[in-house]
């Protein structure tokens, strides 16, 4: 089984492909653009915001709604101590029945409790609520009125600046037009009246800046700062920064925090602006609307043998596996890369010459019996099964210490189905010869 998943069960970073921007990354982390026929890694893809969702209740919302809610979920609350999810717990209390004083009613009251640090809303003195959700009110922000005054002042400043900018533009136009109109001899005042019809109002007197006057006298420091220092009662800095509106110094004032929303992003190719990766609308779904992963379009290369470290300057036999992701048979050519092109290479590799044939990917193959025939006409192929082959190469490390790194160039035929759909009359998919640069890290040299 381990031989079937060479890349995944062993180190994922063993085989790295060179992306079109020059960076190396494993094939599992790259995208493939079908329109420009090139690999795109995480860094040469432009990321766009798709939507926001809450990690707990999986409620999705667009960017505008998220902005209104300040990137917080309305329903889900987090523990202020450890930022873990709060779960609702019920406790039954007996309440005197107003109708019959002898039989007390049992009423269910709810409180929030953290699973990790065992914090409850009772710790801050919040009374239990009769309903499970919706009654967990946030405390009022004490500074809200001051913030609103400041926002109003700055908004008025911004509008004044905007008007001035427009007036400058208009006055620039006005100067050219007065020159023009000197020839006709019109009076300037009529020009002013014509511009006022554009709707520019005269400048309003600016609002007074809402400055808080500094205190002349400060009250003396209360005695409790010197006597009572209960460290277990004071909040830590991360806990205070999670509630920037109040930043309470005492743990008894820490209220539950609304959970922050998580971003979902689209990946777009920087070359041709096509979407490479677009997730499904439902946050809980693992499907994609558009999924152009490199794994589905570029042959996957992995290391099969040897498991032991290679010895210095000894030509060892290394077996790599190549698997075909497409549903058309492909041909593959492997060529070594010279050391001049890449700096990290510490070993030479002699891959097999000639064309390697790979069968199409067959989804039913795993349910059928493995066919022993069809070993193929290629000499270098050691093992073949449906769309996967194992190929023997020989590797000679140059350096006595460090990692054995080899570089290969892989050329293969890519069947492009996109272009076939777009052009009329052509039923066969367009076949293009693509080539990728591979870097394989075969582990450290045997000391």
């Amino acid at each position, binding site marked *: 089984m381990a031989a079937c998943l060479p890349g995944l069960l062993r180190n994922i970073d063993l085989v790295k492909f060179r992306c079109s921007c020059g960076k190396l990354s494993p094939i599992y982390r790259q995208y493939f653009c079908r329109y420009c026929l090139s690999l795109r890694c995480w860094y040469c893809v432009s990321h766009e915001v798709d939507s926001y969702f809450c990690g707990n209740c999986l409620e999705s919302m667009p960017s505008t709604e998220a902005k209104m809610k300040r990137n917080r979920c309305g329903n889900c609350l987090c523990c202020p101590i450890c930022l873990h999810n709060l779960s609702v717990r019920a406790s039954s209390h007996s309440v005197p029945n107003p109708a019959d004083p002898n039989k007390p009613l049992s009423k269910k009251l709810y409180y929030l409790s953290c699973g*990790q640090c065992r914090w*409850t809303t009772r*710790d801050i003195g919040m009374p239990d609520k009769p309903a499970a959700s919706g009654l967990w009110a946030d405390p009022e922000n004490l500074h809200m009125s001051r913030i609103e005054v400041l926002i109003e002042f700055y908004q008025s400043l911004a509008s004044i600046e905007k008007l001035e900018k427009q007036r400058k533009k208009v006055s620039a136009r006005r100067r050219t037009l007065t020159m023009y109109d000197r020839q006709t001899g019109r009076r300037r005042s009529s020009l002013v009246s014509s511009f006022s019809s554009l709707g520019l109002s005269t400048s309003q007197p600016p609002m007074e800046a809402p400055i808080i006057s500094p205190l002349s006298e400060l009250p003396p420091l209360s005695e409790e700062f010197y006597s009572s220092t209960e460290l277990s009662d004071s909040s830590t800095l991360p806990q205070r920064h999670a509630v920037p509106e109040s930043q309470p110094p005492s743990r008894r004032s820490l209220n539950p925090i609304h959970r922050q929303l998580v971003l979902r992003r689209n990946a777009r190719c920087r070359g041709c602006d096509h979407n490479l990766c677009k997730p499904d609308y439902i946050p809980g779904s693992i499907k994609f609307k558009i999924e152009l992963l490199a794994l589905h379009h570029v042959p996957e290369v992995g290391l099969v043998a040897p498991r032991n470290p290679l010895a210095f300057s000894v030509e060892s036999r290394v077996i790599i596996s190549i698997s075909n992701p497409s549903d058309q048979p492909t041909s593959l050519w492997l060529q070594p890369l010279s050391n001049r092109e890449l700096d990290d290479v510490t070993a030479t590799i002699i891959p097999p010459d000639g064309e390697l044939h790979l069968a199409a990917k067959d989804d039913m193959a795993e349910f059928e019996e493995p066919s022993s025939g069809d070993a193929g006409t290629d000499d270098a192929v050691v093992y073949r099964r449906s769309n996967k082959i194992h190929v023997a190469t020989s590797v000679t490390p140059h350096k006595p210490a460090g990692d054995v790194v080899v570089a290969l160039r892989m050329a293969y035929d890519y069947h492009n189905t996109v272009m076939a759909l777009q052009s009329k009359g052509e039923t066969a998919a367009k076949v293009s010869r693509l080539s990728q640069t591979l870097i394989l890290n075969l582990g450290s040299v045997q000391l």
Partner: protein
Amino acid sequence: MANPTSVAVKTSLRIGPQATVCQDSEIRGEVIIGPKTVIHPKARIIAESGPIIIGEGNLVEELVTIINKCDEDSDRGQRVPLIIGNYNVLEVGCRLEALGTGDYNVLEVKSQVGRNTVLSNGCVIGAMCKVVTRETLPDFTVIYGKDHERRIQHERPQPQLLQLDLLSKVLPSYHHLKKARNISRQSSVSSTASSTN
């Protein structure tokens, strides 16, 4: 860890009334289990260098190791008992070596408590947390998180009465139980009271 080639300890097991001890659990040495306690299968209670006394209403889940094993250099030769109080919950995979444990404690999954720690009442040792310091944890301490942060909780953990009830009814229908000479209720209360004092 229990060495199979160590000195063979004479197993003497006394189980209180209404306690449920599964046959598949490994109990070695002198062990007294209080009433209403439930010991799941695959639990290991090993009293190597001293007896183990477990109080009432405790819940000892699978793969739990309660081991009374002295250090090589200290307290050699003395047979110190390992005492666990009442209504504690030892969740799956935890390891308790502490000589003194009070009531209403919760040791979460895969937590470990060393021999020199003393757990008082109402403490919660979080999942995968390892506490081996030579100290007595204050009442209602909660140790949680990757960095073993601590805080004091306001309420003690609820005793798992419903769970104990359910298990004492369900476990016998799927597992064989260990039966030992029952000790009377009065003597069990007095023994736990005298040992915790």
